[in-house]
């Protein structure tokens, strides 16, 4: 029974998980990658372009265009259009909005797409112009990018809660195990804890295998009504609940928690399930320290106890706590904003028995969490969704 006053997402399904296989560098534009994802989505669904009446776009490298320019670029004429440039929280935010649009009848089929290219110099350019605060108050300080910002957060978290690098390492090693069966994962060399510990320092305490590999790629999914999905012969998953929060806890001198800590209660009560009911979890894994915060703030353990939780569990797809079941960005790569889509697209696959890698046995309920946008010293955007296998 739902204990939330929010309207349930009855009759809405999420379907047609699409991944355009990643590449380390690409000479193509973000438009090319997004176009490939849209093409795959229309092929999978059988929808004609003029039947796609809703579009949501997430990208860092599509400038000077935004979603509106892409409608003309792709020959679409949607009646519902959204641009969600929220990095690692993009998929959750896009999903929430798309689900409500379909529910209210503002759109029938919403294609949610995230894609980014990675030219040889685009990562540096993205970093140096990421935000006004980054330009004024972060990038001029060593220009270490997200590695340096998360290093400060990780260092403080380790100091505060007595966390060791080995604890982070266990997460990364398990994700690599999960990635071994994923064909397009960019990092598919088996990783051991001693490899992890011996890796070179990037920005202490962040070492090589704590970092995602920037790459080019695209991810997409379709949101529509249950009957519509059935008519297209698409397997869909149900949306039990979602949360979203930005710039939570500005009073914390340094980030030790995210917006999930504000809204987790509602996430569970709206879904009518608890952490013990979840069969797998897809966290946003741009640095293991953020994974630990998600485990705590989403209620899998108490604040400061994530390291202990990680020590007590096996995090592979066959283990006691299947986590980042396709290997996450740490193994597959981070295709810009598509990195925020990776977990959600993988969750749809797990709940429709179509994983790219290995299937989690009896996967019925999955939790997906998003996090993004280091505007200054901390990630601002957070969100989560609970998805369930259709009966």
């Amino acid at each position, binding site marked *: 029974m739902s204990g939330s006053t929010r309207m349930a997402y009855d009759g809405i399904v999420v379907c047609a998980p699409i991944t355009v296989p990643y590449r380390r560098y690409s000479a193509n534009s973000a438009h090319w990658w997004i176009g490939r994802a849209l093409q795959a989505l229309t092929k999978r669904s059988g929808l004609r372009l003029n039947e796609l009446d809703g579009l949501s776009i997430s990208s860092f490298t599509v400038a000077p265009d935004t979603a509106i320019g892409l409608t003309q670029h792709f020959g679409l004429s949607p009646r519902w259009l959204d641009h969600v440039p929220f990095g690692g929280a993009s998929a959750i935010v896009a999903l929430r909005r798309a689900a409500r649009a379909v529910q209210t009848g503002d759109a029938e089929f919403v294609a949610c797409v995230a894609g980014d290219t990675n030219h040889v110099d685009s*990562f*540096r350019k993205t*970093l*140096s112009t990421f935000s*006004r*605060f980054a*330009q*004024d*108050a*972060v*990038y*001029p*300080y*060593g*220009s*270490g*990018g997200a*590695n*340096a*910002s998360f*290093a*400060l*957060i990780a*260092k*403080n978290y380790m*100091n505060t809660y007595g966390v060791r690098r080995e604890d982070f390492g266990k997460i990364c090693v398990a994700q690599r195990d999960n990635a071994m069966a994923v064909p397009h994962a960019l990092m598919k060399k088996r990783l051991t804890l001693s490899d992890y510990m011996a890796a*070179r*320092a*990037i*920005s*202490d*305490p*962040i070492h090589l295998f704590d970092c995602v590999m920037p790459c080019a790629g695209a991810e997409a999914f379709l949101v529509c009504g249950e009957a519509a999905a059935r008519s297209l012969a698409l397997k869909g998953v149900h949306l039990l609940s979602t949360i979203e929060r930005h710039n939570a806890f*500005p009073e914390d*001198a*340094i980030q030790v928690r995210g917006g999930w800590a504000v809204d987790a209660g509602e996430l569970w009560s709206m879904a009518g399930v608890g952490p013990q009911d979840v069969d797998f979890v897809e966290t946003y894994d741009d640095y293991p320290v953020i994974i630990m915060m998600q485990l705590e703030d989403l209620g899998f353990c108490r604040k400061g106890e994530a390291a202990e939780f990680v020590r007590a569990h096996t995090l592979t797809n066959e283990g006691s706590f299947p986590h980042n079941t396709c290997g996450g960005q740490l193994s597959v790569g981070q295709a810009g904003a598509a990195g925020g889509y990776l977990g959600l697209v993988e969750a749809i696959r797990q709940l429709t028995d179509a994983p790219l890698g290995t299937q989690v046995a009896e996967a019925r309920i999955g939790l997906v969490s998003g996090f993004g946008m280091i505007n*200054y*010293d901390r990630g601002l955007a957070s969100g989560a969704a609970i998805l369930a296998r259709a009966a």
Partner: protein
Amino acid sequence: MTEPLAPPRRKNPLKKTRLPLIPQGARSRTAHGLTMAAAEGRFALQRCSDCGMAVYPPRDACPVCLSPRLPYQEADARGVLVAETTVRVSTDPYFRERMPWRVGTVKLDAGPVLVAHLHGDLREGERARLELKLDKSGAPVVLALPDKDTPHMQDDAQLREMTCEPTFRRVLITDGCTPVGQAMARAFSEIGSSIVFVGVAKAWKPFAGMDALRAVERVEIVPFDITDTESVTEQAEQNGGRIDIIVNTAEHTRAGGIIERRGIGVAREEMDVRYFGLMRLAQAFGPAMKFRGADGVNSAAAIVNLLSVYALMNWPLYGAYSAAEAACLSATHSLRAELRPGGVRMVNVFFGPLETEWFQAVPPPKVAPKALARAVIDALKRGLEDVFVGDVAEDVRARLSVNPKALERELAG
């Protein structure tokens, strides 16, 4: 513990001179409030006029009450270094060749949290004091230093990227015939500059203080006439490749306004010394200095230009003089932009009436040449860009920021 700087070894002429790079200097318009404070060596943050909240990074609305009234004000610079990291991989070419580089998160007692460059003697968890500095791009950055001074702390590698430390550097003082030039030579010698070249326009003509100047350690008197292009160029050809700091002490001070003077002869001389003189200096020495902005411990660091504070607002008692100073000031702004890509700083040192013959009839307070020299050394050590020396200069600067029109009327007497 900061390792004390060792005297630089003689340069290997076969080795490639490393090209100067600069970090990204783009800032929002609002953030240039920090540029102003850093240029003058003050620590200032935005503070909300309505709710009193101290704010960082620079904003256009208060994050507590949304007030747009966020002036920069002097702020308490003390806090704690909460977390630090050593960046070992950077996407920026400037930092890439300076790895590893330490940065950290500092929580100020006054509230805001700042990402800062770290002095080598500051450790995680310790009390810190912050300073605003200009980096090699001329943009403002925050540097966290240990709460209390440590031995040789000025020799810290990261700090030195933001200062123009005169020790072990080679200096040219453009005019040694004046009391100011001579005080300057003494000050640089005392601080440990390796050579102090002192320009003298007419070698055959004795001048007051000549013998004492010759006796100053590491001073080398060189022929140099700033009004003679050939003389300036010749000196640049002789020593331009090894001059790291230039202090332009050339002056031409005559009392009087414009109407009472007959003709423009004196004005032309003033312009020749001050405006065209700076131009000759910059054209002759600028290219080599710009090329040597990252040339090790004794890289080219700064051109210091001494300016009357009346460059900023005309003082009719010295009306024509003020106008020439204003022309010279304007030229420094162009030079500043031109020197920046080479990592060389243009330092303007503004002074009020000096304790010299040419200000004989002016009542005190006046600036002693020695005080001016001290201020120049201090500006270089701290990496400042705009310096105001003495009570009159500070007074003019303060009044200018409040009401330039009032200052104009009041200077007219």
